[in-house]
């Protein structure tokens, strides 16, 4: 049973990162019905921001701050030049954002080349936690993810901006009639969701190979987490992340990563089939 704490920590850190990645995706989808297929590439942009600041000698930490800002601006531009024309064509937003994902990935290849790039580990030491030693940076990631997730919940549940956004989700016309600029809310949300993806990419950059294909690795599990958790409420993603991330880590540990991927996929498809609204989603009608 000495395995348990580390297994839990490992699962927990994967779950938190998964939720962090999925969070941006789900608030955009929940609010606007837009599936942002370029989310993985926003993650990529975030990671490359850190790669750049690190190689320019500015270091990792400023990059971590810069990444969400830059990626947020990219998201803003995408919303302004593309997404807002497609709000009433939901399926087409999937296609358009997917085109964007192709373009961003290709731009990265053109500018940075196809090779994996490095980021100096910002916190290389291990922390002694009594029973076990655990990498400091991973603890930081958990803490950072937790606070970003908490911050997002705070924004949505406790601030005026979040109140307005929730009102727009619940009843767009009524919110507009109360003087809330729904367009603005959409734009802010898209920007915020993009910034979250950028932040997630920046946070993960020291831990994974930073190459142009890195976005996909989190994108698909994040999607499954959303589908499993349901899109109706923000807390759905917590449940979805827990189920997908947790089962993935545990099966990886007990069996192998190959079986865990197949099991998680199958599990997700079954959940989606039985509860199309997700485990925390509520069914429409009756």
């Amino acid at each position, binding site marked *: 049973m000495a395995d348990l704490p580390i297994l839990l920590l490992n699962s927990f850190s994967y779950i938190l990162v998964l939720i962090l990645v999925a969070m941006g995706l789900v608030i955009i989808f929940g609010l606007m019905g837009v599936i942002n297929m370029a989310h993985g590439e926003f993650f990529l942009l975030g990671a490359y921001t850190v790669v750049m600041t690190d190689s320019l000698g500015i270091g990792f930490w400023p990059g971590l701050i810069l990444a969400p800002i830059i990626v947020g601006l990219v998201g803003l531009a995408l919303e302004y030049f593309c997404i807002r024309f497609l709000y009433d064509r939901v399926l087409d937003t999937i296609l358009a954002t997917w085109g964007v994902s192709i373009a961003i990935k290709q731009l990265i290849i053109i500018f940075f080349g196809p090779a994996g790039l490095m980021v100096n580990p910002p916190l290389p030491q291990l922390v002694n936690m009594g029973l076990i030693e655990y990498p400091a940076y991973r603890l930081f990631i958990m803490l950072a993810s937790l606070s970003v997730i908490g911050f997002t919940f705070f924004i949505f549940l406790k601030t005026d901006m979040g109140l307005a956004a929730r*009102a727009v989700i619940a009843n767009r016309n009524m919110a*507009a009639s*109360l003087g809330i600029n729904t367009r603005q809310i959409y734009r802010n949300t898209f920007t915020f969701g993009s910034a979250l993806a950028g932040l997630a990419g920046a946070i993960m950059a020291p831990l994974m190979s930073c190459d142009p294909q890195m976005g996909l690795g989190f994108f698909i599990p994040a999607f499954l987490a959303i589908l499993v958790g349901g899109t109706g409420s923000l807390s759905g993603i917590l449940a979805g992340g827990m189920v997908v991330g947790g089962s993935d880590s545990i099966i990886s540990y007990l069996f192998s990563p190959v079986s865990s991927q197949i099991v998680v996929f199958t599990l997700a498809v079954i959940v989606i089939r039985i509860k199309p609204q997700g485990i925390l989603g509520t069914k429409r009608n009756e």
Partner: protein
Amino acid sequence: MLNITNLHASYGGSRILQGVNLQVAQGQIMALMGRNGMGKTTLMRTIMGLLRPSSGHIIFDGKPIQGRQSYKISSDGIGYVPQGREIFGDFTVAENLRLGALKFDRKNRDIPEEIFDYFPILAQRQDQLAGSFSGGEQQMLAIARALVGRPKLLLLDEPSEGIQPSIVDEIGQILKKINSEAGLTILIVEQNVDMVLEIADNFSFMEKGIIVHNCPVQEIKADESIITGYISV
């Protein structure tokens, strides 16, 4: 205060408003009456900017507002209480009220005290989920929420629908009070004749997308058959 001329609007190709002319004077309570499906709600939605008029003018407070976005119209000073109230059931009372004030600068977002004077029940139950309220309480909340936005003109769409008669009376009295104390102009769509006879100054009747008759309340009190002709079977 509100001057609508020759307003046309369609919904899904269906021509609902076919040339509406309507004037509401400052400080007045105007009742808009007519059968279902005649375009009253559509008119409200069009004034509020939720539906784009195909032609015609809406002048509010001396300024054309037709075709403006809803949130701007709200900021111009029109409050809206839609049919079915559309309060945010999953939000608390306080949040619902705060939503009405979000259009203001951060420092002006306080809920005016007099709101709770008009609707004392809301003061006690600020943290309760609005969805748990009864119909009448929800209606009060919806009106209060609109008032938080400090409108010059309040649009009310069937406030008495699905509400027990005693509360309808209460709401009517509160509206009258707000009208006389704060000078709020009100345009109310209503089927409950007793209530509007009590509070309205003027009546307009709508049929097939146009205003077919205008008259002051006295005229109706003198001859109720006017009303029956326009809204009953």
